[in-house]
């Protein structure tokens, strides 16, 4: 049966220390397909593909490529067999230029010399052919995430990928960018590239793929043709139960002003006449969720850091419940009732090596009851953590497990639980569901809604437009450090998308 498939996996098993990532995977991908791989966090999607790409090696099981048994799977071998992969976490070196990243691992025409110009020509040819424009001479750390992804795709194509694997490619893109990507993928597919598309966004999967396989707990539970299925069925297959993806939103009961920003700006200290944040003002009232939509790297990060007291704006003021907190330290803000759910949970929200319990007291550890006199109160802290784990349904055997051993969804739950269980007056949320699966997303969204309904004031910054539209009472769109438009859930996706892309300014409409 292997003949008909371009790639097929047979009884693949893969374990990591203490984890069975893949118990017994059987899967076939046909030539010329766009084959979607759907699954919850930790289902094993990335692991399976990493095995194919040779980054990991299976404990047991076989892979067949074009009917041939494919052994000794190393990345080099994969590249030679025309397998290209865009990883969930980009495989780029920040302080190398785009060009250098593309050359990496290539063999030069005149070894050992690094023939940059030769490679530049070659790469430009490819980018012409597939219509992917990137600036080869910028450092990767200087280009936007969207651009970095283009670099990744170009890299794969340049290395002659016949089979292209994309691991959650859209999580960082605007709707427009996603649509462009899909177009690009369709073209590639026409030109004969087989594509494996990993995601847990149902509508995307429905849109792009023609075959869909669902992974759960390290096994393929089903493979269906797109025509014969529905989002509802897919989500059930994925989570193993029914998920109500939509629910009605009660209109907000707006109270007094809680948070205000008066025309703050932040000058880029690397480039004095560039502003990372430019004349931003906003006013947020008790009991509403204000969403900031926008493509990544348009100043949201800097704005958030200013609000959290990690940076001082070059000009302008920030006010929390009337107090001027423009120059307040982060700790002062926290004590004034600011809570913050950062975008990057692994690096900003959690200390990966610490236990769950230790992570639950990151901001409050020095306060009663966690500290009495000189010393921390382990018993108190553990009980607190146990309660929190129970209430926010963090899936873990015990609170002494290091958070690095939790799945993304559960890590996020720890943060949310921590931030919600403080006495909060104003909540700043960034990318609350980044990389989470439907189950977790639904959970997080409900938590945010119920908080808002019980009078919490929330500012949510997210690059996931769906999310912003679904939760926000008001929407602000940010582009190149500026607020370019106001909107609400009635505004059309297209309009908001165009604002995010900078091609539409609201004042232009008025």
């Amino acid at each position, binding site marked *: 049966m292997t003949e008909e498939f371009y790639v097929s996996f047979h009884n693949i098993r893969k*374990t990591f*220390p*203490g*984890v069975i990532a893949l118990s017994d995977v059987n899967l076939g991908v046909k030539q010329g397909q766009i084959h979607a791989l759907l699954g919850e966090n930790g289902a094993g999607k990335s692991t399976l593909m990493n095995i194919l790409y040779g980054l990991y090696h299976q404990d047991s099981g076989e892979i067949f490529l074009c009917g041939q048994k494919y052994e000794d799977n190393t990345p080099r071998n994969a590249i030679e067999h025309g397998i290209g992969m865009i990883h969930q976490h980009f495989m780029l070196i920040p302080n190398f230029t785009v060009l250098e990243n593309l050359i990496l691992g290539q063999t030069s025409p005149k070894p050992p010399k690094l023939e940059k110009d030769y490679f530049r020509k070659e790469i430009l040819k490819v980018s012409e052919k597939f219509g992917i424009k990137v600036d080869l001479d910028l450092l990767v750390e200087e280009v936007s995430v969207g651009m970095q992804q283009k670099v990744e795709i170009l890299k794969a194509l340049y290395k002659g990928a016949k089979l292209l694997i994309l691991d959650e490619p859209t999580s960082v893109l605007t709707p427009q960018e996603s649509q462009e990507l899909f177009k690009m993928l369709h073209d590639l597919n026409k030109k004969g590239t087989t594509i494996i598309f990993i995601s847990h966004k149902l509508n995307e999967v429905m849109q792009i793929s023609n075959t869909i396989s669902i992974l759960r707990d390290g096994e393929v539970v089903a493979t269906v043709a797109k025509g014969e299925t529905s989002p509802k069925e897919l989500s059930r297959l994925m989570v193993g139960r029914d998920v109500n993806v939509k629910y009605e939103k009660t209109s907000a009961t707006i109270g007094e002003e809680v948070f205000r920003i008066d025309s703050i700006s932040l000058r880029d200290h690397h480039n004095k006449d560039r502003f990372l944040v430019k004349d931003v003002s906003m006013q947020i009232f008790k009991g509403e969720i204000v969403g900031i939509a926008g493509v990544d790297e348009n100043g949201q990060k800097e704005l958030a850091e200013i609000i959290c007291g990690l940076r001082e704006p070059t000009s302008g003021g920030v006010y929390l419940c009337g107090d001027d907190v423009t120059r307040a330290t982060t700790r002062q803000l*926290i004590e004034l009732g600011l809570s913050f759910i950062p975008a990057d949970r692994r690096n*900003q*929200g959690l200390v990966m090596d610490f236990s769950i319990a230790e992570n639950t007291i*990151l901001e409050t550890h020095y306060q009663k009851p966690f500290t009495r006199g000189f010393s921390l109160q382990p018993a108190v802290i553990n009980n607190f953590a146990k309660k929190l784990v129970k209430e926010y349904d963090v*899936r873990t*055997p015990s609170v002494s497990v290091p958070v690095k051993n939790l799945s993304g969804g559960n890590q996020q739950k720890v943060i949310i639980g921590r931030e919600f269980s403080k006495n909060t007056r104003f909540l700043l949320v960034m990318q609350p569901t980044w990389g989470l699966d439907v189950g977790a997303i639904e959970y997080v969204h409900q938590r945010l809604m119920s908080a808002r309904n019980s009078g919490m004031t929330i500012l949510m910054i997210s690059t996931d437009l769906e999310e912003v539209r679904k939760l926000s009472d008001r929407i602000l769109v940010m582009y190149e450090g500026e607020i370019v438009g106001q909107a609400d859930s009635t505004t059309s996706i297209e309009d908001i998308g165009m604002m995010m892309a900078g091609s539409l300014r609201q004042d232009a409409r008025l």
Partner: protein
Amino acid sequence: MSEITLTPNTGNNLKDRFFQFASKHMGFISVLISVLAILLALLIGAILIAIAGINPWEAYGYLLKGSFGSRYGFGETLTRFIPLLFASLSFAIAHKSGFFNVGAEGQIYIGAIGALLVGAYVTNLPPILHITLSLLAGIVFGALWAGIAGVLKIFLGSNELINTMMLNYVAIFLVEYLIHGPLKDPQLFIYQSSPILDSAKLPIILPKTPLHAGLIIALVVTVLIFYLLYRTPIGYQMRTVGANLRAAKYAGINIVGVTLVALITTGGLAGLGGAVELMGAQFRMVAGFSPGYGYDGIGVAVMGRYNPVGIVLAAILFAIIRVGTGAMQRGAGVPFPLLSVIQGLIIIFVIASGYLTNKLTETTVGGRA
């Protein structure tokens, strides 16, 4: 997602039982592995000794007898253990706080100078007070010396590895200058500092041996340090800064403040080590005051895996090697260089054997619980 603890997928339940045992007694097992590594190193050493025409068993007999087989040797070993323990604590706490302090050696010297100034030149104090003040002086001086590197790191971002290393050389020459000039004992014709007064000397706690009250101080401090690290807010903050600086910032932890505290502790510990060595063992400052305790401390901390029990055991090992090898030359006439060879082998083997411990930890308690 499958939240199962992984038991190796071989039906062999004897193996399973072993893994279960291992997961319960990891500490014990890691010690066991280290001991085996030491034996292996000693075995190779034995071959070399035999080649040198000496009876290895006799030689090792002296190693044991010299280091803790006799009352005096026992006291001597524990005396060497004291500064090693301080030095390793100093390195460990810096490491936990994300600071790479290889400067314990210099901080030991400077700390000792601090203790000397109070111990030798401040007169007619009651012993308790005099000792306390001298110890404090040691802490302060050590902290200040480490502080130089710290301030340079915090405010100029200079690399602390270099600065602490350079400060070692500077400290040693500085001390040499001091005992040649300002602090030279006028009574003496050679270059040594004046001795500290009797009221500043630490009492002997094991009669007929050099073992002094510094041992108690060292052990108490060890407990305090790990209490500080794991049971106090400031310790929590130090570990957070060490483990994830970004998260610490977002949590509103005052990075500069915490780093300063970490520095004061790391420097203070080494300085205290110097003070205790001076007040308990040597009494006056000489050019070769510390025979590399500061550097050994690094090995001790890593070998002890930065946990109190481990560090104490590793420090004892290093002390035994220091004292026992001396006995090997005295008793069996093992050539001096061979002793270094054996020391080197022991260190390399014990550290290398850590591989097994890590593997075992991974496959049993590690991963997602």
